[in-house]
């Protein structure tokens, strides 16, 4: 990550996701550079598109990106922007930046995979806790819970940055809509892994990864 410079404002946002992303890519997702074009691969959608350095670093470590792309981060000739563009970044399933788009796209992805019989394919989407303030996420959350979209998984990286907080905690927002949800220490790799792989028959699954508060 030190190869990527600039974007200092988003620095803390970048490291908040690092452990959660690493465990997901290293131990859970069924996708590699070789299978990135397979129709039944697992999908990871980075919805919280700001602070993508950890994402680029993990994609590099897993062989999706060449390491020599990293120093150009954010420059005119680099495919790696301060918000990712799926048409430029190998392995990126969506372009993001404007908050509140990844979860609805993930719902559509999960529905599309189900319609084509890819029942084994899991869809994961990473959102920030403040991002859950976007109304589009409320639409997606309620729909996915009501329809029991089992292959959908949300990873909320919670650095307590939501402007008015969330009475009752983030997870309760999901469980009240019929989701399975669990809250863990976002720096504890074993806890993350257990939360990621917990069974959740008949319902979508949410993992809230708590990290240190935004400065």
């Amino acid at each position: 990550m030190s190869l990527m410079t600039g974007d200092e404002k988003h620095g803390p946002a970048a490291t908040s996701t690092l452990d959660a992303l690493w465990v997901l890519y290293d131990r859970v997702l069924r996708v590699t550079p070789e299978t990135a074009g397979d129709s039944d691969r697992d999908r990871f959608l980075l919805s919280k598109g700001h602070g993508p350095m950890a994402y680029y670093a993990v994609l590099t470590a897993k062989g999706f990106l060449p390491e020599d792309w990293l120093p150009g981060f954010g420059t005119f000739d680099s495919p790696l922007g301060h918000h990712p563009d799926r048409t430029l970044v190998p392995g990126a399933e969506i372009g993001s930046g404007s908050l509140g788009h990844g979860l609805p796209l993930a719902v559509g992805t999960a529905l599309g995979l189900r319609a084509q019989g890819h029942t084994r394919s899991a869809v994961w989407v990473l959102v920030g806790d403040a991002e859950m303030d976007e109304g589009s996420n409320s639409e997606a959350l309620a729909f996915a819970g009501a329809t029991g979209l089992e292959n959908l998984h949300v990873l909320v990286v919670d650095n307590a940055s939501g402007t008015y907080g969330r009475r009752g905690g983030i997870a309760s927002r999901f469980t009240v809509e019929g989701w399975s949800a669990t809250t863990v220490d976002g720096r504890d790799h074993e806890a993350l892994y257990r939360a990621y792989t917990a069974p959740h028959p008949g319902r979508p699954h949410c993992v809230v990864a708590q990290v240190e508060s935004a400065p």
Partner: protein
Amino acid sequence: MRERFTRVASELLDEDPRLAVVLAVISADRFARAARAHPHRVVDVGIREQLLVGVAGGMALTGLRPIVHTFASFLVERPFEQVKLDLGHQAAEAVLVSSGASYDVASGGRTHQAPGDIALLDTLDGWTVHVPGHPDEAEALLRHAAAGTGTRVYVRLSEQSNGTARPVGPGRFQVLREGRAGVVVAVGPLLDATLEATRGTDVTVLYASTVRPFDAAGLRAAVAGTTAADVVLVEPYLAGTSVSFAADALRDVPHRVLPLGTAREELRRYGTWREHVAAHGLDAAGIRRQIDGFLARG
């Protein structure tokens, strides 16, 4: 046209496993049979229009070709950022089919009217826009859109339609009448009124059921056959929507353009769509009056 759309889209679901229909309550009752036959390819997200378009984007990323439908105001205007990002920015392909158009729901007021839908789409790239003037044209253009690849398509359905269908040829304006005094481009359901308005006048009448891409070559050829490069655009949505396209087509030709369409000022009236057509000066008498004045000043 909406009746024809729901019937044909249901048939297309039977024929093509790549297709899906995504709804937000509107017209869901008309897809009940299709939903029973294809429970995973007919999805009603409820009254959630941001999700409507987001779901379509996600489905498209898995290889499906979603047909997305609700009223124009809730399909293009309300979730415009989803249209821009979840489809355009993702390079995802989909077919958006709207009903309601500019004034179909006249008695419903401004909330259910979308005269600016095409002007909004014009801020984005890669959109094909069909404005059928007859249910048969709507069917042909829908089948064309459903079979296509590599494009984002908007099909704008309306209650208003012409007495007879014209053959559709996406990307080409059809020459229906030839004259020397100017060129009148009639879009979709305003063709009948335009033909009546120009009866006995010496103008060329072009018919457009597809407005994007804009047939620049067709307009240039028509203008070349006239003695005055006077162009009238008759559009059933915001007046002037296609002016920049006409200007670009005629960039090397000194020309005048009269843009007819719905007024930007809000018409705070209810009533019927026919009354709104007249109020916007888009009935035959209104079109005739405006064209006569324009050509007389030339």
